[in-house]
């Protein structure tokens, strides 16, 4: 269909409006973070005058934002890998094995999908404080307290289960005839076949864990273990901190998510789409 000139202009305006609304604020904080002149609270600039890296350098060396960035990245990296691995193992059993109790396990796991994490915040807080069975130690105030609670994620288990169910039985049988044992079937045949789904589970897991706010709040109280989302709030309250520097910190906190999203965009959209099409 050929568009008339007014139609083209209208389209262009719609695109411009959408970009301004959804991306404009991000452009604003980036531009302001690079601006030398101090801005007033609530102020953003459209173009950095006297561009400078000073605010980032200050945020890095004086605010020691690298500590929190490291904490966030460390927690998110370990937790995402563990989450995907644990989910894949469970999904293999649920998708490829018939066993007594499978229905109950599925139901128990799916029920946590409807469970808002915030609802169990208080008992979880007490459990993190309590000693773990066998280990006789509490994980409160450790990285483990921020990692282990997010390792079990029903969404990831069910996404991978659905994909693993779709693998033809013949392939599994072929591997069995070829002499593969259960672990080899899982590792060398099933996992490579669900690689796209693993990508999807990984990016959703990454964003979900990166976004954790209440969990670090109840899992640690040592400021040196704070993650970026938690530290942002306490930095904001810090009256002495210059607005530009705070904005620079915000920019630093935004970058990892956007990078991961851009890298794994295809897998991300596939995950959203599987929901939209299947309902």
């Amino acid at each position, binding site marked *: 269909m050929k568009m008339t000139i007014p139609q083209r202009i209208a389209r262009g305006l719609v695109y411009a409006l959408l970009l301004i609304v959804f991306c404009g604020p991000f452009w604003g904080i980036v531009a302001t973070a690079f601006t030398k002149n101090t801005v007033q609270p609530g102020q953003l600039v459209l173009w950095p005058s006297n561009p400078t890296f000073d605010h980032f350098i200050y945020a890095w060396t004086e605010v020691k934002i690298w500590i929190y960035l490291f904490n966030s990245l460390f927690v998110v990296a370990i937790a995402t890998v563990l989450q995907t691995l644990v989910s894949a193992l469970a999904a293999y059993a649920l998708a490829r094995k018939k066993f007594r109790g499978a229905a109950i396990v599925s139901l128990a796991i799916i029920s946590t999908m409807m469970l808002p994490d915030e609802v169990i915040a208080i008992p979880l807080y007490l459990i993190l404080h309590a000693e773990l069975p066998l280990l006789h130690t509490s994980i409160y105030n450790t990285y483990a307290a921020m990692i282990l609670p997010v390792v079990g994620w029903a969404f990831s288990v069910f996404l991978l289960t659905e994909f693993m169910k779709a693998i*033809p039985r*013949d*392939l599994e*049988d*072929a*591997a*069995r*005839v*070829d*002499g*593969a044992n259960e672990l*080899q079937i899982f590792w060398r*045949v099933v996992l*490579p*076949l669900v*690689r796209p789904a693993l990508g999807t589970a990984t990016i959703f897991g990454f964003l979900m864990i990166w976004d954790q706010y209440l969990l670090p709040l109840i899992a640690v109280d040592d400021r040196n273990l704070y993650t970026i989302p938690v530290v942002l709030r306490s930095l904001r309250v810090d009256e002495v901190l210059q607005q530009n520097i705070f904005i620079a910190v915000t920019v630093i906190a935004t970058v990892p998510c956007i990078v991961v999203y851009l890298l794994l965009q295809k897998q991300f959209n596939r995950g959203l789409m599987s929901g939209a099409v299947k309902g």
Partner: protein
Amino acid sequence: MGSVSLHNINKSFKAVDVIHDVALEIEDGEFCVLIGPSGSGKSTLLRIIAGLEEVTTGTVSINGKDVTELPPKQRDIAMVFQTYALYPQMTVAENMGFALKLAGMPKAQIAEKVRQTARMLELEPLLERLPKALSGGQRQRVSMGRAIVRDPSVFLFDEPLSNLDAKLRVQVRGEIADLHRRLGTTSIYVTHDQVEAMTLGQKIVVLRDGRVEQAGPPLTLYNDPINTFVASFLGTPSINLIEACVEMRGGEAAARLPDGALLPLGSGHDCREGQAILYGIRPEHVGIVAGGQEGGITATIHAVENTGSDMVILSDAQGFRVSAAFKEQRPLEPGQTVTLIPDHSKVRVFDAGSGKRIRRHENS
């Protein structure tokens, strides 16, 4: 060395019995075809031999060794799947070498074996490709190569040709026969296609509802079927089975057809006056003459199927249908009245109630 024997195999899923008391002996080097309609248990039986399915009772022996409790990899078998089941993330060479790699064979040796097999199957130029870059026929060949490279005692084929188009199917069928002649490995082949069964099998096992109906060489089953099921399962166009009634004429039995025609059955049939039978005659054993005539079945042609090499006539008699097939071209048209004359020596008689064959006594 690769004989396979099954003893009293039973298999049930929950309350449903899918395999009943199957006993089978397959000799070393034999090409055995398991055939039957879907749901007959042929694939389940093959999977039981492979060790992919457990038996409820009974034993499976390969090379005289009881393997009933052993996993597939300890049975010295290789399998070709209907969907080929090539690992999509591995190249052709990796697919073929996967079993050897799992078995811990040194890399150089694997490469050598894969190359040899690839040469035999003319797969050499494809070794570095992924399965998705292959045609259906090539994939099929790779899946056979994957089986051959392991040099097993027994090959198991699970409908390996059903995903190919008709022309390729004939070609690959020939290659499989060829391969079996060359390697001489015991092969068990599942199919629902009777042409494959007849052309490939040295022994055919016809299965229905989890039971062996009849087992034997192809021509024995074709010429001497034990019941109407086996008779109609093998052969296209399928055998004519005409409801009839036995009339005894001085020790000779004859069949009275619904249209009143009386056709001799010959002496020695174990049947009695008035018995309801099915008069079985294969289309190629039905002669055809134009116009009405005594001593045959008068019928009207309603369709003529001419493939160029064969002619098949479908005709309506009074109350039943008869088909006839022959090689030569004849000027026959639908609507024409003809007389069909069965070759009396080729008639097979079945009991109408049980479908069981009524045999002739040899001595008479």
